[in-house]
């Protein structure tokens, strides 16, 4: 990836994620998170009032970093990242990670990207931003 080939408004290749029970178990085991809303359906629906098992917010943050890092490949590094979980997502939903270039700073070789996790209803449930520094 060359800075000269990157333009404001360019989209990043979209990627779809559909976490299931097994993936959520693997994720929460890997990070050592035992919050019951990620594996205990009767508790999650009966006591916490969710319609289903909740997909972790930081996992959605990870999906956004994957979108950016797969786009950059070995041509740059992540220098900044932010995300905000605005609305819950549940097992069974297909989540789409999207991105678009918002700024190219040629002087310091940095590119800013606007990011979003979009649910099946088309709602942005996790907006984010990232900055990558491309190797010159």
């Amino acid at each position, binding site marked *: 990836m060359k800075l000269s080939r990157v333009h404001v408004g360019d989209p990043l290749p979209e990627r779809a994620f559909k976490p299931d029970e097994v993936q959520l178990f693997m994720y929460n*085991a890997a990070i050592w998170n*035992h919050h019951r809303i990620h594996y205990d359906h009767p508790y999650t629906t009966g006591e916490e009032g969710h319609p289903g098992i909740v997909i972790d917010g930081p996992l959605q*943050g990870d999906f956004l970093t994957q979108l950016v890092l*797969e786009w950059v490949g070995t041509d740059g590094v992540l220098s900044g990242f932010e995300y905000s979980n605005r609305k819950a997502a549940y097992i069974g939903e297909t989540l789409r990670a999207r991105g678009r270039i918002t700024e190219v700073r040629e002087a310091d070789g940095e590119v800013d990207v606007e990011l979003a996790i979009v649910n099946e209803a088309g709602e942005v449930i996790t907006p984010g931003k990232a900055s990558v520094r491309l190797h010159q």
Partner: protein
Amino acid sequence: MALLTPELNAAVGRQLPPVSAEVTRREICKYSAATGQRLQRFIDGDEAPPMFLFGLFLPILPREQLGHDGLPPDTGLVPELPLKRVMAGGTQQTWFRGIYPGDVLVSRQTLVDLFEKEGAQGPLIFAVVENRVETEAGEPVMTEHSTRIAR
């Protein structure tokens, strides 16, 4: 307004004891498989995906210390606030270097800000926690600011 008393404001600057953790290739491989990473350096555990850090410092406690909801007890870094409905307000990270197997990383968490705003549906209190992650030698790895919103 003026929900934040002098006592609450005095909590700004409070720190948790530093926590250190060793990064292993096996833990990176587990994380990469669990999150569906497709870049070979992450799959092979040569480098950790950035969000691997989220789990690295989560406490490992015996079952009897976890709550009914499965969560560990609150750290107490953010004091009890007069508004009780708490939401995650977002996370902002600045990255200085990658994470590699063999790294021993240290996390230092500080309550750096408490402020209130009038929202459309009433008052809001914002609590901002800084998490500075460095190597044992003091090389910066990542600095994160996470905001908790109470309403």
